[in-house]
């Protein structure tokens, strides 16, 4: 039997631990090489795909991911070059990162994985409903929006469990409790890490500001789509930490993502079957 251990949170050491994290998770060297290749205008998509295909582990991971039932491409994608053309480089890079990071998540944090994948689906669905270009980038921003939480779970699991319990007791959103304890929240951590990984701003800003959608100077629409997806999934009971109450969203969300009641209903109808079927998948199956 598992006993609930009461952990007294040492705020100072926890904060120190988290601050030192920003240089912990590193990207495979390979990605650095690819980033350099892409900066060279002479590199063609096909040449890049060919180079990427040389790494078998990475190739099989990418193909497994893009072909998995929930990623949502109809039909089979059999080459990395195809995946690259369909997703674009930025989305693909985000996907590779997410599969590396989610791999280390303990089964106990499974709801966080479920939440991330459904927010990804919802972000894509909202972007599609609004006829926005590059919907795969929205999907990846959704997938990575809580990457800060994943890192907290992986690197400071005991302390983070205490934070979650405290949020539940206070019945307040988790990011507010994190802010009170750490002075920063999981979105801030996500922003540091993504900047460290040199992800483009169109991805780092929605990740870093999904709880403060009016704060950034640019990419308001992208932030609003991911925040809206997060609210929608949590309203369906798909939050990463049980049923914490929904906070009143910033008015900028409705301004940027003006969805009608009919559109919201349509989005819910579309997301529910995936939401339910994902519950049956274990996290291991995506990696």
């Amino acid at each position, binding site marked *: 039997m598992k006993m609930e251990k009461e952990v007294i949170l040492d705020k100072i050491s926890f904060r120190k631990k988290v601050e030192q994290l920003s240089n912990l998770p590193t990207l495979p060297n390979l990605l650095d090489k690819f980033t350099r290749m892409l900066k060279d205008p002479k590199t063609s998509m096909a040449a890049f795909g060919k180079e990427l295909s040389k790494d078998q582990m990475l190739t099989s991971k990418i193909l497994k991911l893009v072909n998995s039932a929930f990623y949502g491409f*109809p*039909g*089979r994608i059999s080459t990395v070059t195809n995946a690259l053309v369909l997703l674009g480089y930025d989305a693909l890079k985000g996907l590779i990162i997410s599969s590396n990071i989610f791999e280390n998540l303990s089964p106990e944090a499974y709801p966080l994985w479920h939440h991330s994948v459904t927010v990804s689906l919802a972000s894509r669905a909202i972007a599609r409903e609004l006829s926005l270009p590059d919907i795969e980038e929205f999907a990846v921003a959704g997938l990575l929006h809580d990457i800060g939480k994943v890192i907290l779970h992986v690197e400071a699991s005991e302390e983070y469990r205490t934070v979650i319990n405290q949020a539940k007791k206070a019945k307040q959103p988790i990011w507010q409790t994190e802010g009170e304890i750490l002075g920063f929240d999981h979105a801030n951590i996500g922003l540091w890490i993504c900047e460290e990984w040199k992800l483009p701003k169109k991805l780092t800003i929605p990740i870093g500001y999904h709880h403060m959608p009016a704060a950034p100077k640019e990419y308001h629409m992208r932030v609003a789509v991911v925040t809206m997806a997060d609210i929608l999934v*949590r309203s369906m*009971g798909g939050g990463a930490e049980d*049923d914490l*109450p929904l906070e009143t969203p910033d008015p900028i969300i409705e301004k940027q993502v003006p969805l009608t009641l009919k559109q919201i209903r349509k989005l819910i109808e579309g997301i*529910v*079957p995936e939401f339910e079927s994902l519950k049956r998948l274990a996290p291991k199956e995506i990696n």
Partner: protein
Amino acid sequence: MKENIPITDVKPGMLLAKAITNDKDMTLCAEGTPLTEDLIDRFLQMEIDSICIESNKEMSQEEYLALKEKIEKRFVASYNSNSLLGKIKIALLGHLESHKGSS
């Protein structure tokens, strides 16, 4: 209610709830098609892992009320029915209502 299920759990007679398309978005099997052994075999050959079927599971009154209460609890922040949260709540309750058993 629509439900995604692994292809290995699909039985003849189930109704396809979402069209099967190829990579060019061409419909190969339309929504609403009753599934047969042959069709299921073809899906297996096409290496389709899961499909969306119309499940005939109806929600009981108790399940409906329990889910409704859970939704109500999530919406504690102040808002009016015209606001974003208001619209989401109405849409969710509408969705729930539409899957309630008729009895």
